[in-house]
Each structure stands twice: as C-alpha cells, then as structure tokens.
C-alpha cells in the first residue's frame, strides 16, 4: 500500500498549494477560484462563518470532494482525482468519526494496518502516550468523554505522519474550558511533531491562539491571509475587521495625501492615519479603529501632539467588566462608538451622559474602501 501513496516531491516546494480551485454544487459556488499556499510544518487556520466554504476546501484537500476546476498540489504533485485513501493526508473529523466497534488502540492502529506497516503495537503505544490515553487503550470509544474521544481522533490521524493533517472544527463539540485546554495541547503537539496542520474553524479566538497563518474565508473566497497580528492590527476588508474582534467603522473622506499620513475629514474632525495602513488613498472611505485602541478622557484633558482627537462624545452606556470597562459613546453625528479601557486606574469611571473626548494614535487606525458593507462579518459573529 505504501507505494500507492504520493512520493515526497524532490525539488518541488514542500508545501500544500491550491491553485484556482473552484467547487460548485449545482448553482451554488461553495469555493470560488481559491489560491492558497501553506508552508510545510506550519499551523494554518481557515477561518470563516459557517457556509463560507472552509469545510468544502478541507474536504477537497482530503479527497472527499472533487474540485470542479483547479489544482491541489501536495509537495508539488497534483492530487486532484487521486482517491482519498491514496493521499498523504489525514483528517480529524468534526464528529471524530471513531469506529464504534473497535477499541481505542485498534482505532489508532487503523491507518497503519491498512498500509501494512510493521510494529504497529509500539507506535500505537507511543501515540497513546503522546495524547495521554495509554490506560484507555482497550476501551471502546463510547466509554470515553468528549475530550478523550477528540484526542483519539487526533492520535488516529497523527500516527500516520501525513504530509498534511486536516482538522475540521475538531474542538467544536467541547465545552469552553476543555476547548481552551485542547487548543494549547494541539498547538503543543503540532510543534512537537512538526507536521503541517490545516485547521478549519469559525472561532476567531481559536484561530488566533493556535495558527501561524490565518486565511479568513467568506462566501467561497479568501478575504485576507496573514499572521494573526497582521490580520487583527491591519485588516484589509470590513469583513475581516468585524469578524476578527470588534471594529468601529466610521464614514470618512480622504482630504490630504502627502507625507507619512493620509488626512481624513471625519464629520468635520481632522484625523490622520499612517499611509501604510490605508488600503485606499482617496475618496470616501471607512475609518476603522479597534475599541481597545481608543482612549477616553474628560473633554478638558490635554493629549499628546500628533494624536487624533474627536470631541463632543457622550457616554451612552457603561459596563464594568473588571479588567476593563466597555463604553458606548454617542458621537455628534449620531453613531455609537465602542471603547474598551483597560482598568489601569489612570482614568476615573465615566458615568452615563458624561461628555467625553476620544483619541487614538495615527498608527492605530486603518482605512478601508467605502464600497464595502460596514456591517459585513458582524451578524455571523454573534
């Protein structure tokens, strides 16, 4: 069986590559002309709301779906049309899909046995050791807890040392506390075994905690790809700005475009933003700023030079969370902006109806094209 699997590419890029992959189900385009490159040994996350095509993409890599068009390359070899059982790829399924009639050890051994690998027993023991389930080896899956089953599913895939390990929302069925714990464990195991992980999730926090690179998917296309920091700090679309954390998006117009900053007119206030953080350089735009980047103060307080200041806000809602205080501030143009202030003790708590001043640094905002929907990605989130 070993000879059936794809040989490791020589000279070719050691990675997973999707080129112009499209998948249609009838009239519905699930994945639209998708390009993707995953570096070998990295932890890659496909993040998006349900129905965005991320699971379909994963299933195409696994071979469980065939792309309508495009190429899927693993180590430079096109695997489109190769049967799933001949691909050097293993999947951790969302439902775990553990074989109920087999013991844990037999479940883990399944892939090795199909390939006729020797010394299965020792490898299974090692793998169960890694996921801390050695003393559960002779039990049946339904005798284990959800978290344990999840680890069996992971062990069953990992033991085959695939070129690419696919994870289809593997933590979705676990409760929050267990999920956080498994996120750390997964990340640890990934750096230990050094395999390429492609993780599909709709949980932005999960993606940011675990992945080296995130591709944010929406309606069958990738909105933006990059490191978690990059995506969070400098989103390129309103969807990414809203789907990853919160963003205040304010209607604005670019009025100046010289020097290191672009100058904006925001409802009569002059605001500057670092040029590198403006994806459009002229016309009507969305000015974006994360709630935790916005500072709040008394209208009289003086702020450092080169800081963007907007006066005339009124606190319309306060919620004290402990580590931070979350304000909603009604601006003179009617919009409510969200402000998270860390509880450093520097500012007093502002009560409702207090007149306040908002300010932030030019390097903390971003500018997006006005042709996008400012609410994109919001409804999916909550």
């Amino acid at each position, binding site marked *: *069986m070993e000879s059936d*699997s794809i040989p490791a590419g020589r000279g070719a890029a050691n990675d997973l590559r999707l080129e112009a992959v499209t998948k249609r189900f009838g009239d519905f385009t699930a994945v639209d002309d998708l390009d993707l490159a995953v570096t070998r040994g990295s932890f890659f996350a496909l993040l998006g709301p349900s129905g965005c095509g991320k699971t379909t993409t994963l299933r195409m890599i*696994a*071979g*469980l779906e065939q792309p309508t068009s495009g190429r899927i390359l693993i180590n430079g070899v096109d695997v489109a049309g190769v*049967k*799933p*059982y*001949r691909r050097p*790829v*293993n*999947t951790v*399924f969302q*439902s775990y*899909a*553990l*074989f*109920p*009639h087999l013991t844990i050890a037999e479940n883990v051994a*399944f*892939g090795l046995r*199909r*390939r006729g690998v020797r010394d299965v027993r020792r490898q299974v023991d090692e793998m169960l050791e890694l996921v801390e389930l050695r003393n559960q080896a002779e039990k049946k899956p339904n005798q284990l807890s959800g978290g344990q089953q999840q680890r069996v599913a992971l062990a*069953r*895939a990992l033991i*085959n040392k695939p070129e690419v390990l696919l994870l289809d929302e593997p933590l979705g069925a676990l409760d929050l506390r267990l999920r956080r714990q498994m996120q750390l464990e997964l990340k640890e195991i990934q750096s230990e075994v050094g395999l390429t992980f492609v993780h599909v999730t709709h949980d932005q926090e999960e993606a940011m905690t675990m992945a080296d690179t995130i591709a944010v998917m929406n309606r069958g296309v990738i909105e933006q790809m990059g490191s978690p920091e990059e995506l969070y700090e400098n989103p390129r679309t309103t969807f990414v700005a809203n789907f990853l954390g919160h963003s205040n998006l304010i209607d604005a117009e670019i009025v100046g475009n010289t020097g290191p900053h672009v100058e904006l007119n925001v409802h009569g206030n002059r605001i500057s933003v670092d040029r590198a953080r403006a994806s459009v350089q002229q016309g009507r735009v969305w000015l974006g700023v994360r709630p935790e980047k916005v500072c709040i103060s008394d209208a009289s307080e003086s702020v450092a030079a080169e800081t963007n200041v907007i006066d005339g806000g009124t606190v319309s809602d306060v919620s004290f969370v402990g580590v931070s205080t979350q304000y909603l501030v009604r601006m003179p143009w009617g919009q409510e902006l969200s402000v998270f202030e860390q509880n450093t003790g520097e500012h007093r708590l502002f009560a409702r109806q207090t007149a306040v001043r908002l300010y932030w640094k030019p390097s903390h905002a971003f500018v997006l094209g006005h042709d996008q929907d400012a609410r994109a990605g919001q409804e999916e989130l909550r």
Partner: protein
Amino acid sequence: MTAARTEASAPRGTARRRRIPVAYWLLLPGAFWLFLFFVIPFYSLLATSLYDPSGGAVSGYRMTWSFANYWHTLSDYVGPLGRSLAYGSIATAMCLLLGYPLAYAIAFKAGRWRNLMLVMVIAPFFTSFLIRTLAWKLILADQGFIVQTMQSLHLLDPGGRLLATPFAVVAGLTYNFIPFMVLPLYAALEKIDGRLLEAAQDLYASPLRAFLKVTLPLSLPGVVAGTLLTFIPAVGDYINAQLLGNTETRMLGNVIQSLFITVGDYPAAASLSMTLMLLIVALVYFYVHRSGTEELL
C-alpha cells in the same frame, strides 16, 4: 431545614412507589396472553411427549414419564431432522447471500427509490404464504417456462425436473423467508454513519477494505438477527416441503404434522416437536455467543 427536606423527598418517594405497579399493569395483558397461548400449550406439549406411547387418541393416554419416546422418535426420524437442519441452513445462507447486497443497495445506493424498494421487499406479504408457495409450484412445473428453457439450454436433462426436488424446497424456503433477512439487515446498515466510511477512506482503506473493516462488522447485529429470523421458521417449516418437494424431501415439520393429524400418535409428535425446539434453542444460543452479539438475546 430537616423538616423541609423530608417534606421535599416525600412526594418523590410516593411517585417511585406508584411507578412500579403501573409498569406491571401494562405487562399484564401480554403476560396473560402468553400464559394462555404459550405457557399452557408448552406445558401440555411437554406432558404429551412423556405419555405412554401405547395409548391412542380414542382410548386416551396415561402419563408414564416415558422418556424413551424421545429416543425412539429421534432414531426413527433422524433423516427428516437432518433434512430440516440442512434445508434450513442452506436457505438461510441463500437468503444472506441474496439479501445482503439487496439491503446494502437499499440502504446506501437507492436514493429516492429507497421507500419503493422497501415496499417491494414487503409486498409479497400482501398475499398469503400458501398462495405464494403454490405459485412456485407453477413456476417450477415440468411444463413451465423455467424447466423448458433450462432443458433447451441443456442445463437440465430432457426428463429432468425442478419440482419435487430438494432444490425446489430450498428455493421455496429462500423465497418465503428472504424479507425476514432483508429487513433487519437494512435496519442495521441504514444506521451506519456515512462519516465512518469517509474516515476509513481517509485512513488508507480502499472501498473494499472499508466495507470489510467498518460496514460489515457494524452490520453484524443485522446479520445475526436476520439469520435467526430466517433459520428458526425455515427449520420448522413444512409447507414448502409438502408443496414443492416429494416423499424424499420430507422435513421434520412434515413428520410432526402427519403424526399429529393423520396418524394420531400424539406422544411421538410431541416429543419430536420438543426435540426440534431444544435443538434450535441450543443452536441459537451457540451461534449468538460465537458472533459476540449477546445483547440481542
């Protein structure tokens, strides 16, 4: 505090006390029915099997604890008993061979035709068992289409026949009991999560391997249930042997029937019935234990 606790637990206690009698009341009609039509006849059959064999239907029987009845009838009718087991086994095997692919196709491949196919499996039940078996008599008749075709193709000698042969009996049994095989198989196959097969494929199992390692073991409860539902009635059947066989294909059911109804030797008939019943129970017990599906019992 303590008072409140006792008060709170009091209604729960009475509820529990009330629940058990309700369950027993619900069991009562069924238990009564089984007592009347199973326990009493069973006891009567057991008693009859030990009566003095020299008695008669007219002169009456005496209870003599004549265990020798068993030995005598068994040695007299070991041929029909062997045939019952052989025909029953072959028919069960044929049902499994024909029924498994059919059940598999209905469960996994039929799509929107699934319900129609299930109805077609059950459809023969709309006609009486007897009429269906009589129809087979016509199908396999010497002047019938099948015999004539086989003769012209030299698959059958010019004087050869299908009717009144063991083949006809086994074919009749297979036909009559195949729905009892297909339905439990379908129920077991239909329950299998398709994602398990995807997982098997993902773990390097070819479709054939995935079938052998996942589908087949998971359908085993259906196989066991189906074979039991087929084998037990097939072994005890006598209609097929009577209508489609000849004197050389007599099964134990035919012997019991003629001893009871024609000959009137009740102790012999009863002891044969008991022997067959005990044999089937022993076989089933052994089979179910071997296949590791004790939870079915």
